[in-house]
Every structure is written in C-alpha cells, then in structure tokens.
C-alpha cells in the first residue's frame, strides 16, 4: 500500500458527493480521507494540518461545479496538491481546471494504480518547493503540514491560525498592528476584534504548548509580535530565567 506515498502528511481531503469514491481513495492510498459532500459543507478548519492532496469532483450534487472552488482550496491549503476528478473527457474542462490552479486530474472510473502514480508525481513536485519551513527562536513551523514544533513537543494549527503565525514569524519580532494582520488574513472582509482575538488566543496557546522560551506578546494599543527569550537564558548560564 501507499502509506509512504504521502509521507508525514498522512491524510487527504476530497470534495465529492459520492462517498464510495472518497472511501476508495482512502483505501487505495492507505491514509485517511476526509470527504466533504459539497462545497456548502466544506470547512477547512474542521481538518487539522495540511492534506497531502485535495481531490475535487467536477460534478457535485445541487448543480455545484467543483471547478469554481479550486482557487479557494488553493488559498486554504497552498501546499497541497489539487487533483480534479472527472468523468468528463472534454479538453476545455481539464484546461480550465489547470488554469484555475489544479495540479492534475484523474478520470472516472478511478483506476487505483493510475491514482497512485498521479499522486506520487504531484507530491514529488510539491515537496520540491522551497521555503516551506519557517523558524523563529526555538520554534519551527512546517507550513505544508501546519505543524508547529518546539522543545516541548508539537501541535497542528487550523487554517487562519496558521496564516497568523506565518505573518508573525515573517516579521521576526517586529510588532505588527492588529489592523495590518486583519487585512493580511481576511483581505477586505470585515472581522470583529472578538473573532481576531480568538485566533490570537489559539496561536498563543499553541506556542505555549511547544515552548517556554517563545511567546506571543501584545502591546496594548499598538499590536503584537513574537518574542524569543532564549538568548537571555543563554547569557544567564545555569540559571534559567524566562521573561
């Protein structure tokens, strides 16, 4: 079987109205597959981490067209391979899917050996992309897996929390205003302070789970930044002090 195929990103996601197809994908690849029956039901925050592959059926129930959702899937999981499932042999459909951001397609009926070959090819390509692992202090964040690691352990972040942490790591300790972060995370969509604070709370909690030396600091009325106290600790020799 193909447990080794998807590496440590050990699950896939499908948007497919036929549950037997989602189940066959799981059985063929040997990893769990989280199936959403429609786009209405699709909720990336219900899935922890980044899937290795997202399969999207073109013809969904209720006249939904899976192609319409490819750009959003790409935004939710930029490091996942998107593979379109279709019974349609129309070249225009496939060209349209690829233009929208899909990486590949499989035709129905899904032939298990072909599925495995296509998944392997796409993952090889995705895994060659640079800058997937970000670092700050004693934290390491793998954006493909949405996995945060530190001296105390590791934890997965949901989608928006992942985006927030990436922004904070990229700023490398420089304070970012709340409004700036909101704009980077949600664009033009208006988000309440309460909703934003919940995401901050989750990121702070995740950092606490994996490190005692790195923290998310809030400067009231200004913004927030990451702080690593490891350097100070090193200067104190055997005495462990955290700020």
């Amino acid at each position, binding site marked *: 079987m193909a447990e080794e195929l998807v590496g440590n990103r050990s699950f896939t996601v499908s948007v497919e109205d*036929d549950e037997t197809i989602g189940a066959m994908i799981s059985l063929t690849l040997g990893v769990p597959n989280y199936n959403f029956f429609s786009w209405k039901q699709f909720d990336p925050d219900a899935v922890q981490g980044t899937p290795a592959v997202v399969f999207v059926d073109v013809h969904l129930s209720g006249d939904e067209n899976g192609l319409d959702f490819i750009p959003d899937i790409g935004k939710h999981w930029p490091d996942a391979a998107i593979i379109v499932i279709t019974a349609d042999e129309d070249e225009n459909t496939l060209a349209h899917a690829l233009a929208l951001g899909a990486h590949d397609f499989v035709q129905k*009926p899904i032939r298990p050996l072909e599925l495995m070959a296509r998944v392997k090819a796409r993952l090889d390509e995705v895994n060659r992309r640079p800058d997937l692992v970000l670092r700050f202090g004693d934290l390491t964040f793998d954006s493909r897996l949405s996995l945060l690691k530190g001296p105390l352990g590791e934890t997965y972040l949901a989608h928006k929390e992942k985006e927030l942490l990436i922004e904070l790591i990229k700023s490398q300790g420089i304070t970012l205003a709340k409004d700036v972060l909101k704009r980077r995370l949600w664009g033009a969509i208006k988000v309440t302070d309460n909703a934003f604070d919940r995401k901050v709370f989750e990121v702070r909690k995740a950092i606490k789970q994996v490190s005692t030396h790195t923290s998310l600091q809030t400067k009231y009325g200004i913004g927030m930044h990451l702080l690593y106290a490891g350097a100070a600790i090193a200067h104190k020799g055997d005495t462990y002090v955290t700020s």
Partner: protein
Amino acid sequence: MSLLDPTMFESFRELGLLDKHLGRFQEIWNVYLTNTTEAIAKLQKSNLDADRTDCMNLLHKIKGSSLNLGLTRLGHFAGALEQHLKANVYSLHESEIDLLEQIFRDSKAEMDAKLNAIKNGGTATEMTAPH
C-alpha cells in the same frame, strides 16, 4: 459475459484490496449497494414527477460509482440513459429503469459471488461469473 470490469478487479487485487483489506472493501461495497438502491428508487420517483434534472443527476451518480467499483455494464447503461435525457428527451420509459434495476441486481449477484469466493479461499482472477 461478465458484468464486471476484469482489469479493474485485477488492479484491486494487485493493491491488496481484495485480501488484507477485503473487510474495508466489503464495507465500501455495502455503502455502494445502499446508495445505489436509494438512487434507483429516487430515479423512479423523479421520473414519474418528470424531474429531468434530478434524473440526470441520479444517473450521473450511479454511472460514476458503478464504474469506480468495476460494474461496467451498469455504469455504461446509466451513462447512456443520462445522455438520452441530455438530448432533450422528456423522461425515461419505465422499462428502461426496470432494465437498469435488473442490471444492478445481476451485477450485485456477480460481485457478491466473487467476494464470497475470495472469502472462502479463492482469488479474484480464478472465478467465473455466475451469469
């Protein structure tokens, strides 16, 4: 003539889906049977209601899941009926749905026989269809 696609069955076998994962395959098969039985019942109702779009969607679904599990004859027949409706035919003839249901029953019998033979110690490729 077999109602199932031998090449599909062979690839299931090559991947071990019909030996060490036979239990899981059987679960998927049971889900397929439940869903397809429901879809055919809905198809009969939607056809009586002259809901052409719903009929096309149901046939599309039956086609996809059937071909995916190697039930070639059923998948192709459902696909042909779908195309028939797409060509602006108002509704299906009752006998067409009866035939679809008959192919479903025969395909089910053939697949069940194969799965039972595997459970009893045979292999997927050794068996002949009970047709």
